[in-house]
């Protein structure tokens, strides 16, 4: 790993430290100075002092903000300066801190919601993250989630997993005879696979944008990652 230590030129202490790694350049942003100071130093480095390393072939750039929270507008200001150099491609902007709302949304997404309920006709159960429903979904009832859906009961109504586009989501049910299934944007074809129910627990998943249904014991082969992320 090559490390390019940057010598201060105009400011007393350098606010932006640029390091070279195998994956490209990493910009470490000082998180104690003011944002304007940071901008000034970055501009100085990009436009004047570091011309020699910042030119040449395409380089991937990661920005590490440390413990500074930057609004999307502030992030845009930073990346705009870096993007002036045609050969610098911003790969990611990363901070060690997030807002409370983001943290809450993040928590919801990774949460496991347990519901004890019968979803009757006309009722909709919707949530972020995974849902475990201890009860039936009756015809005309709907269960929707951004993550996976597990129904420990009879799934007779509508189920939509991965509503914000997660194609890896699955829908599992103890008894699978739904009116319709959706995963991300894919809608199940009303086949006769539901009517000749095997009686066992089954799950639906996407493979090449086609919805397939398999017995539960195939889950470990088809989505082995499900177990690890929830552990």
């Amino acid at each position, binding site marked *: 790993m090559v490390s390019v230590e940057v010598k201060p030129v105009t400011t007393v202490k350098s606010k932006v430290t640029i390091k070279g790694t195998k994956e490209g350049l990493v910009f470490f942003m000082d998180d104690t100075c003011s944002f304007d100071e940071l901008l000034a130093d970055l501009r100085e480095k990009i436009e004047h002092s570091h011309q020699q390393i910042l030119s040449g072939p395409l380089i991937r750039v990661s920005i590490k903000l440390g413990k500074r929270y930057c609004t999307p507008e502030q992030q845009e200001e930073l990346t705009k300066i870096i993007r002036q150099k045609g050969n610098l491609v911003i790969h990611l902007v990363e901070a060690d801190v997030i807002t409370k709302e983001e943290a809450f949304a993040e928590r919801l997404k990774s949460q496991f919601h347990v519901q004890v309920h*019968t979803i*009757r*006709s*006309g*009722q909709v159960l919707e949530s972020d993250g995974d849902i475990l429903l201890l009860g*039936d979904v*009756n*015809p*005309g*009832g709907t269960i929707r989630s951004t993550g996976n859906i597990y129904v420990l009961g*009879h799934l*007779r109504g509508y189920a939509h997993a991965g509503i914000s586009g997660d194609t890896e989501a699955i829908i599992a049910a103890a008894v699978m005879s739904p009116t319709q299934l959706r995963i991300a944007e894919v809608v199940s074809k009303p086949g006769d696979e539901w009517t000749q129910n095997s009686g066992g627990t089954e799950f639906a998943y996407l493979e090449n944008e086609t919805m397939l249904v398999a017995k539960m014991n195939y889950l470990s082969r088809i989505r082995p990652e499900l177990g690890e992320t929830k552990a």
Partner: protein
Amino acid sequence: MRVDGIGGTDVGIGIVVTSGKGGVGKTTTSANLGTALALMGQKVCMVDTDIGLRNLDVVMGLENRIIYDLVDVAEGACRLQQALIKDKRFENLSLLPAAQTKDKNAITPEQMEEIITQLKREFDYVVIDCPAGIEQGFRNAVAGADQAIVVTTPEKAAVRDADRIIGLLEREKVGMPKLVINRVRSHMVKNGEMLDVEDILDLLAIDLVGVVPDDDHVIKSANQGEPAVMNHESRASIAYRNIARRLLGEAVPLLPLEEKKGVFQKMRKFFGLK
């Protein structure tokens, strides 16, 4: 089965009869249940909340005695007592008819609750006949009720609507509703052409309070303005009376759905003639 609710105090119980779908027999069930309860010595008031499409008075044969109605009471045009029609055939039975010229928005759930509360002071049971649908009429009918009876027929559409209604009732204070399956045709169930009781209970997952067989006598008696329970022979009549007994807390086994065979027929079968 025990009647849960306010047993023990001197306040009556409001029971709403509802279904979601129209034409499954809400009014017939209300009329027969109310009459059966009255025949068993309970003081009963039936309330028709189907404003604009009133039927309960017709089924009960009391149409020509209506002077004031539910909306008059709500608007204060008359006292509650003046609007009640006492059924002369059963001393315990009264009817509060719906208005025919107004619509369902002519009364609010709060007014309805007030009227039902007043009635409950005087009667043991207030049987509320709910209109079809899930709009204002439904909300009015449910407003004063302590318990709910959901009527369905063994048809997919009716069961679907019953499921919807049960979902809506969960949000009200009526507790878990009880189910009446109406107009069951045993020969069709046997051939698998009609949903059977098990299928329906499996889906709706509520307590069953009665199964009423399809019976021509019900139509005949409704047209005559006499509730079917007045006839002691008809199978539907027995089923309705059994529902009333179950509501009163008696443990009554379900009626077998098979048509009763006469002694003569049984003998013929025994000798292998049929």
